Structures are given as C-alpha cells and as structure tokens.
C-alpha cells in the first residue's frame, strides 16, 4: 500500500503544535512508527485512521486523498481497523458480541452471518472459549487479541495498531505480536506504533521515527536500526535497548 503525507500539522485547541510539517511518501506492507512518548505517534495514527482531523496538510492512501469531513471520515473509518493500547473493547458486551456489533450495525450483516464470522475468527486465533466472556473477565492479552479480531472481521484495507502490547505483562506480549505477525504473513497492510524494537525490526518493512512532533528519520527496516543517521535515533535506540538481554 502507498502512503503519502504532505506537510501534515496538528495543533490541539489547548496547546502547542503536536505534529509539525510531516511529509512522507512510501510504499509499505508493514509500517512501524517509533519514538519517545509524547512525540505525537498516537496523534499521527489517529489522523491516519480518521479519528481526528489534522490542522493542515494532506493524507493519501494509494493515491486517494482522505477528505477530512465528518461524512467522508465515517466512510474512511469503515474501511480501516483500529486497535487501541487497551480498553478498546465495549465492556458491556462479550468478546463475540464485540466482534459482531460492527458487522451488524455498520456493515449490514445478518446476525447469523456475523456470528459465523465472529466464531470463525475466535477459533482461528485460539479464542474459542473466551468469546462468551466479558472484557473484565479476560486477561489483557486476550482482550487485545479480541480487539484485533474485531478490527479484522470487517476485512479492512488497512489495520492500525497503537501500542497494542504496551499495557500488557511481558509474558502476554508475544501472544499478541504472534497474532499481528500472522496477519502480516497473510498480506494484511499494517501501520503499528510500538516500543517493541525487535518486532519493528524483524516484522516491519518500513519505519518512521517521530520526536517532538517532527519526523526525524525514516527508512527501510533492518538497515535503519543498524545504521541510524541521526544522533536522536541512535540515542533513542541505545536508551531503549539498554537493559535488553
């Protein structure tokens, strides 16, 4: 998939500039957004997913510019899967109902068909026994995997994930990343914000590095890690890898 960002800026009504003149153009299968926290990663991902509007600038996927009006964004969001850091499941619905709700109410499925899709996905990702449970009864890892299943149920053109593992206990991280990897191998287009540098390096083909709202560095996956061009990136990588075994 092709992505093109043209001079993208975001300023919230309350404060300073969160994204400053981001321009970027690339063809990717899996794009990882990395950088220190507060750097604007989530904000950028929300703009790409049509959840918030940029202050100025342009976003295009496969040469089609996203129109930032409420009506067009509704359509845009319906083609995209979005997974949040945590608590993205509707907590009054069971896992299965979470997957069914968008299918029935947004994508016009009959209840029966939606249930079939939901059960199929739950089984595929070894969540068969958890579909009947409420989010509060599930582990963080199970919640995230169901959230990913819900996002995938609509067969999105693009799957966006905002630090899907950062709220998890370390031993649960790999079950979620394994699932993301499986989707990548199936050819799913993915943009992922992550602090899991190993995953970004091995499983993603393109990386962008965001600091203080600026795009500091961008490049191909393994080489960007072995050969950082900016002192900011080398500093960031050494800091984040300091205590890795």
């Amino acid at each position, binding site marked *: 998939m092709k992505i093109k960002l043209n001079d993208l800026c975001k300023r919230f009504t309350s404060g300073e500039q969160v994204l400053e003149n981001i321009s970027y153009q690339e063809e990717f299968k899996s794009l990882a957004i990395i950088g220190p926290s507060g750097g604007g990663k989530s904000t950028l991902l929300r703009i790409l997913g049509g959840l918030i509007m940029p202050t100025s600038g342009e976003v295009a996927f496969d040469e089609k510019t996203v129109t930032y009006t409420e009506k067009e964004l509704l359509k845009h*969001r319906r083609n995209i899967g*979005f997974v*949040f850091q945590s*608590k993205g499941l*509707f*907590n009054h619905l069971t896992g299965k109902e979470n997957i069914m*709700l968008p299918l029935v109410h947004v994508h016009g499925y009959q209840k029966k068909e939606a249930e079939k899709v939901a059960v199929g996905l739950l089984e595929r990702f070894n969540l068969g026994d958890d579909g009947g449970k409420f989010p*509060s009864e599930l582990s963080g890892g199970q919640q995230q995997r169901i959230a990913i299943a819900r996002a995938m149920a609509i067969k999105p053109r693009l799957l966006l994930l905002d630090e899907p593992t950062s709220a998890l206990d370390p031993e649960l991280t790999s079950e979620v990343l394994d699932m993301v990897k499986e989707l990548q191998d199936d050819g799913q287009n993915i943009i992922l914000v992550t602090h899991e540098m190993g995953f970004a390096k091995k499983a993603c083909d393109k990386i962008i590095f965001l600091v203080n709202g600026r795009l500091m560095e961008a490049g191909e996956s393994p080489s960007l890690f072995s050969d950082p061009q900016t002192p900011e990136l080398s500093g960031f990588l050494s800091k984040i890898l300091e205590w890795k075994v």
Partner: protein
Amino acid sequence: MMTIKKLFIRDGEGKITVLQTAVNLLLALTAFIVFFSFSLKRLGLDLDFSFLFTFRYRLFQGFGATILLSLTSLVLSLLIGGFTAFGNRSHILPVSYLSKVYVQFIRGTPMIMQVYLFFYIIGTAWGVSNRFIAGVLILSIFEGAYISEIIRGSLESIESTQLEAAKAVGLDNRQTMRLIVFPQIMKRTLPSLAGQFASIIKDSSLLSLISLIELTQTIREISSTNFAIFECYIFLGFLYLSLTFPISMATKYLERKFSYEN
C-alpha cells in the same frame, strides 16, 4: 466467652454469617421496640389500632394514590432527569446552562419551599388546578434534578476509550448513543435509580401540604378527627416501609449483580 464475642464482631474479612445477621438484627429491632414502648409508657399511653379498621377504605385509597403519584412521577422525573443530564453536556450553551441552573436551584432549596412556590405561583398563574397533576409536576420537577445528577455522573464515568472505539468501528453518533452509551449507563444507574424511587415515595408525603389526598394527607385527616396521633403515624410509618423496604432490597440486589459484571 470467645464464641459469644464472635457473634457480635465482624471477622477480619468483613464477612457476616447468617447466624450473626439473625442475632444482631433481632437485637437491634428489640432495642428499637423497647425504647419506643418505654417512651409510650412514660406518656401513659396505651395504643389501640383497632379504629383504623373503620377507615380501611380511605386508607386503601390514600395508599393507592401514593403509589400512583409515585409511579407517574418516576416516569416523568426520569424523562426530565435524562433530558437535563444530556442537556448539561450539550454543545449548545443555553441548553447546558438551563440544565445547570435547574439542577442547582432544585437541589439547593428545600422541597417544602418548592411545593408552595410551584403550587401557588406557577400552578395558579398557568392554571393547573387539578391537585393530582400539580402534585405529579412538582414532585417530578423535584426528583428530576436528583435523577439528572445520577445520570450525569454515570455519563461522565463512561471511559473516553469506549467512545473512541465506537468511532473507530464506524458507528455514527446516534448508534453510539443507542448501542454503547445507553446500555452502559443503564447498568450503572439502575441501582441508584431504584433508590431514588424510594425517595420519590417518601417525598410524595410533602404534597399533603397542598391537600393532595395521598397517604399522609389521609392520615392527617383521620388523626385530626380522633386525635389518635401515635397510632396513626406509627401505622403510616409501616405503610411507607412496606413500599420502601422491598425497593431497598431490590437496590442492594442490583448493586451486587452489576458490580460483578463490570
């Protein structure tokens, strides 16, 4: 010695056994009754409730009127409370401030003042002469403000992630309300709303001030003819308890039920 002490002391985990409940409840009730009868003894009174039987028809009517009044007011105050709770958060500022002023005024003033004010000024000026309708309106306007706060509280307790997730899966605003917000606040407000219903029943007694013939007014009228004030008001207390006690049990049940699910 230890075992006797155990009967009266909550254990470290805060659990209470059935036996503890029975013994202590009985003890509390006995203390209450002893104190009451002792006070009556001092007054040299012998209670005789038998005359109430002759008023059974009027009492039954008054009881029915209180139930009808409370149920109607419950429905209306839910509507008022719901609209003003959402109104409070409206992007249209006049609506927001209207809701805020309403809630603040009603909750900040005693009901007795509102009963007189609304009945004599507004009721007369706008020609609401039917006492029952006036009573329902006054009670609903009063309780609506409290219900408004209950609903607003639970609206605020809905996590922003829930709304963002609704947006992300492509729900529009109305679907978000119907499929996400409404079911979530239902669960959270149901126990408090049940409790508020008990308040409505009790507060409806103040409408006797405008001579609306409900339960309290019926008793007032009966006691003013025979001066059996103690019998009348003790019996009145039991009648209200017979309504509010089941509701209070239901509230507890709902609280427990939903605390597990969330």
